[in-house]
């Protein structure tokens, strides 16, 4: 008798993958723990995490937003200014060391170096350079914004019960003297590249694993019941500085991240892994979940992945219309909103003569 003889269909490539319809793979994901719609969720990670946040919100999950957009910003403008993408306005966090440093900084255990960049007289927070696309007026203003941001990050992680994080990349650029990790290479959005100060870094399995363990330890020191859902972004690298072909570099990077996520999920009851990466980027999808650039994930891919996640958590994807927090805030009533007797009188005075 073969040890494979009694295994379920999910264990076999033909029944588990090749014969599955493109609308999803049955039994791909089995949740490790339940998440109720009331559970306070914090979300962060690479750009693919934006889609996860959005869909969870749309389906009634309590994805926190501690830095909501000011009234009046259209949803497109809000996203352009880094609002509504995640649970705070930290922008994309591609590598786990960046996440670790953000948390350490927020709680007073880390001071980043060389983190205010300049471009044509405008100043940028190098640790989230895209959230102010036009930069700020002065370094002091950047400091003020960051101080407030860190206070909101503390509020987020003091409160959140579930943390959804998407691993994005292994490659990054580091400020050598301080070890500060940047989400973009100096000189790309702002700042200037200096080969004596800025070093390329391609994190290996042990470093990523160890960094995430420190993240977990820090967050569970604040909230011992904190649970984690990890995903790996299926979005390939735009470019690599590793001297490899970008395809090889992408597969290497994603494989390391997938391995770390798998190891963490295997070892800890409070860490779950959701296989959106496999669903979108593997043989199964035949590339159909990517746009023509073979990089951006299309809506069908996101929808298919989220359907699987939501169904496993007991939510029919079309059944629970939640609040789309990307939509513009309804305008609050103010003192000028109502036309009162004064306005009526003013019209009568001029027009009833």
């Amino acid at each position, binding site marked *: 008798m073969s040890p494979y003889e009694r295994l379920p269909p999910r264990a076999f490539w033909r029944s588990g993958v090749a014969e599955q319809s493109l609308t999803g793979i049955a039994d791909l994901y089995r949740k490790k723990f339940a998440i109720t719609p009331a559970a306070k969720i914090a979300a962060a990670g690479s750009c693919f995490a934006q889609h996860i946040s959005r869909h969870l919100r749309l389906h009634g999950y309590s994805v926190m937003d501690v830095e909501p957009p000011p*009234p009046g910003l*259209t949803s497109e403008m809000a996203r352009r200014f880094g609002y509504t993408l995640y649970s705070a306005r930290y922008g994309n966090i591609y590598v786990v060391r960046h996440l670790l440093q953000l948390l350490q900084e927020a709680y007073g255990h880390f001071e980043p170096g060389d983190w205010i960049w300049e471009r044509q007289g405008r100043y940028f927070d190098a640790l989230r350079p895209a959230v*102010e696309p036009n930069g700020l007026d002065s370094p002091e203003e950047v400091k003020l914004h960051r101080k407030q941001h860190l206070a909101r990050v503390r509020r987020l992680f003091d409160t959140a019960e579930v943390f959804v994080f998407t691993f994005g990349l292994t490659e990054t650029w580091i400020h050598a003297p301080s070890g500060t990790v940047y989400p973009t290479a100096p000189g790309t959005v702002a700042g200037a590249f200096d080969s004596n100060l800025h070093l390329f870094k391609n994190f290996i399995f042990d470093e990523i694993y160890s960094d995430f363990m420190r993240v977990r330890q820090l967050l569970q020191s604040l909230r011992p019941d904190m649970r984690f859902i990890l995903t790996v972004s299926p979005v390939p690298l735009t470019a690599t500085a590793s001297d490899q072909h970008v395809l090889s570099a992408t597969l290497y990077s994603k494989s390391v991240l997938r391995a770390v996520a798998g190891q963490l999920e295997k070892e800890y009851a409070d860490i779950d892994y959701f296989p959106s990466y496999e669903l979108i980027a593997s043989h199964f999808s035949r590339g159909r979940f990517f746009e023509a650039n073979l990089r951006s994930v299309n809506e069908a891919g996101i929808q298919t992945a989220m359907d699987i996640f939501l169904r496993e958590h007991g939510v029919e994807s079309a059944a629970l219309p939640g609040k789309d927090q990307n939509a513009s805030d309804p305008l*609050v009533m103010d*003192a000028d909103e*109502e036309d009162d007797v004064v306005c009526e009188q003013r019209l009568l005075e001029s027009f009833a003569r």
Partner: protein
Amino acid sequence: MMPTAPCFIGNSHVACIKDAVDHPQSLFKDKVTFFYSRSKSLEDTELNGRRLISASAQVISPPHIQIAQTEVDIDSHDLFAFFGLRLSMVSLCSRLYERCRLPGHPTDPQHSPISRSAMHAALEGLAADTLAIRLAKLVRQCTDKPIFVVPQPGPSETLRRVDLESLGPAVRERFERAKKSWVPIMNEEIGGVLYDIFVDALKSLGAKERLVFVDQPRETMTAGCCTKPEYQAHPKDLLHANRLYGLKVLQELEGCLRR
């Protein structure tokens, strides 16, 4: 281009224009059709073919005859100007300032810092949602004729020091709310900065929607972006402006047409 058949559309803030339009030297004398009502009443305004219709609007056609119709024919007019209709600097900025502060302005923990460019984008969004811009866009859908948008004047400087007890109960509550949310920005330090961003935002919006924004005449404003008391409609009406103000606005409008 000198208009021969302008159409002025507004809420109570068009009243000062009505008072001023008959000035002997006005370009608009004896030419203007007014389409007006309270903002709340004009919410139902829609396009029916090439006519602008509201069940509760009132229309006065030259030479100032109230007519029974509640509509204006777009093709019969060669210029449109929108007055007030909730497009107000203090109103929009105070909504933002309840939650956000530009760097250097007094703040407390519930406020988030906001950059000038985010403030600009937010004000553009808030303005786009006002009745003035919504109606102007409605008209723009069916004509290429000039469309001007004139915001309502800032509240009178008197609001800063008004004794609320002296006001009648019908307006006291409103002024209490106005004072609470508006007065913090009605000063030179904050109001002047916000006004510049507001004007820039409206100009950007105007460029996108092909509308011409006509600024509140500077000589009618205090440094804190209030309207000077000599331009307020009555001693106890701190929100509306008088004929003198209307004349200044018409001069601005005429200046735009001559350019």
